[in-house]
């Protein structure tokens, strides 16, 4: 379920922590249809990007997006000048819908932020892991170097905080 964030409070931090722990302890990765060995679970890369498409396949729910640059004013492009599309491997489709992630809630052009455990081979794809997922209100974007969780009125989709870029915390 999507939650609108008006500010960060101690209660919210505690609630989020409890939710994360419960999620980790009680929820097996249902409907996982492939090994996650290809992803480097020891690392998070953190993105703010723009949605190209949500792909709600039952087996492999994906979000296709183009990252924004650090200034948050332009798309990241490949060496041919084309938008560089990343693929985020999400949880099961059922869990994604439970979190409110749909084609309607993430239309093309929606700006959002999340962390990914990147593919070990450096290709533009990764797995969400336990990262939080935050969407900027329509028509807004974060300040340079920041993410959607910093924008007033952002929405959280599912549990989790924005991770820091670099080593992932051990669970």
């Amino acid at each position: 379920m999507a939650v609108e964030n008006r500010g960060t409070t101690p209660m919210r931090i505690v609630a989020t922590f409890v939710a994360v722990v419960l999620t980790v302890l009680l929820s097996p990765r249902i409907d996982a249809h492939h090994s996650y060995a290809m992803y480097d679970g020891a690392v998070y890369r953190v993105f703010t990007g723009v949605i190209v498409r949500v792909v709600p396949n039952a087996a492999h729910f994906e979000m296709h997006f183009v990252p924004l640059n650090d200034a948050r004013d332009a798309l990241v492009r490949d060496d041919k000048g084309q938008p560089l599309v990343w693929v985020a491997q999400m949880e099961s489709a059922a869990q994604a819908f439970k979190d409110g992630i749909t084609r309607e809630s993430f239309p093309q052009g929606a700006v959002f932020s999340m962390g990914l455990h990147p593919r070990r081979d450096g290709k533009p794809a990764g797995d969400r892991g336990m990262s939080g997922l935050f969407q900027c209100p329509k028509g807004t974007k974060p300040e340079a170097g920041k993410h959607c969780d910093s924008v007033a009125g952002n929405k959280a989709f599912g549990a989790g905080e924005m991770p820091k870029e670099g080593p992932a915390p051990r669970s």
Partner: protein
Amino acid sequence: MSTIRATVRAAALSLVLVAIGASTSFAQLQPPEVKGLRGAPFPAMNPPPDVRSFGEGPQWDGRPPDGVQPLPVDMFTSKDFYKDRQLWTDQRYWRCNAPRQIADMRSGGAGTSTNDPRIGSNPPTSARWGDCKMDWPRENIVSPYPFKTAKEHYQALIADAKSRGGPTRHTYETMPRWDGVYGEYAPNGRRVWNYSRANQVPTLLSLLTPEYQQRMVRQIYHEGVNAAHQWSASYCWPEGFMRQWATGPKPSRIVVTPEVVLFMGSGSGNMWRVVHLGREFPLGQGVAQWYGDTIGFWDGDALITWTANIQGWNQHSSWEWSDRLETIEILTPVRDANGKFLGLDWEAVLYDPEALATPVRILWHRNYQQSWGTADRLGWVECTRPLYPIDGYATQVAPGQVIEYKVPDMLDRPWAKIWEENFEKNMDRPKQELDLGFK
């Protein structure tokens, strides 16, 4: 004398058989009419005849029918069909061929080769002509009903059923006994118009919105001129909803219960549709389904359904549909004079405000063949041995061979991307940039 007697007897027998056949033909494709709602008769017989080739053999390569003045440029001589938009509505641009005739220019049809391809000896300019006088009337295709949306149509059908004490709630004891195996009724080889064999191209284009006209033209051009068929089954891609009314998997089996009616079939893929009786939308999470979500009700022994939430996709040699496609389908039983169940008249009214300029209708008949109890098993098909797009052509690749393969974006019309990258480099294609709101 005995010869004469035998001849007279044979003639009489033939007349009886013809009469029986005629009455059977009459019984089918004539569903009961409820004015303004369902069963509207056609101005002419359905299903339609296929467009013929105007002439057979090499002497007809590139040769128009007598009295037909060819255009200075047509699809077989054009280098850029995008620039010819004003000609798309002229049947001579297509040399009077139906879309499927164009797709089959180099073959004898799907799965069949030929030693006399209609593309002629100097492809593509030597392509042969079809019969310019054949065209299934447009008024037989557009919906005869006043509704703009499937929802309106469905609500009107329910209201009508209610006015007569319905909808009917069948039990195991009363429900129609439709369970069994069905085939396609194609008298004299005639098939419904959606096979894209019975119409001149401009007639079908007139049913589409401008963007979807361009999509269909693009497909016909690359199939006919470049022989670059991107047929879904070639690549083990899904067949999609509309392929039921073409050469894709069809509803060949039916199971009826008081809660649901199942349509199932397999062929170049599997089709599986569940009519949820007495339910309302939504039936689940809002993920588009390849065969949509279907609700329905009984009106006596007629099954009336509404299908929505269909995945937009493509049918080769024909028109694409969007995620907004919805259908109203009405199934009515057909019996002969003795009350024997012959099968189902199956009327489908298609609403797609994105792809279709006007709602359209298909009326076909599913012939009852036998019960589940005597039929072969219904197989489940898993497509595991695809062709691969190499230089834009669906190509067989032997096990062990290494190829370069570009991963398609499956929900972004991958067939179009293949044509764009391999055959349209020098064309003036309207720009369709990805606009994400950032530079």
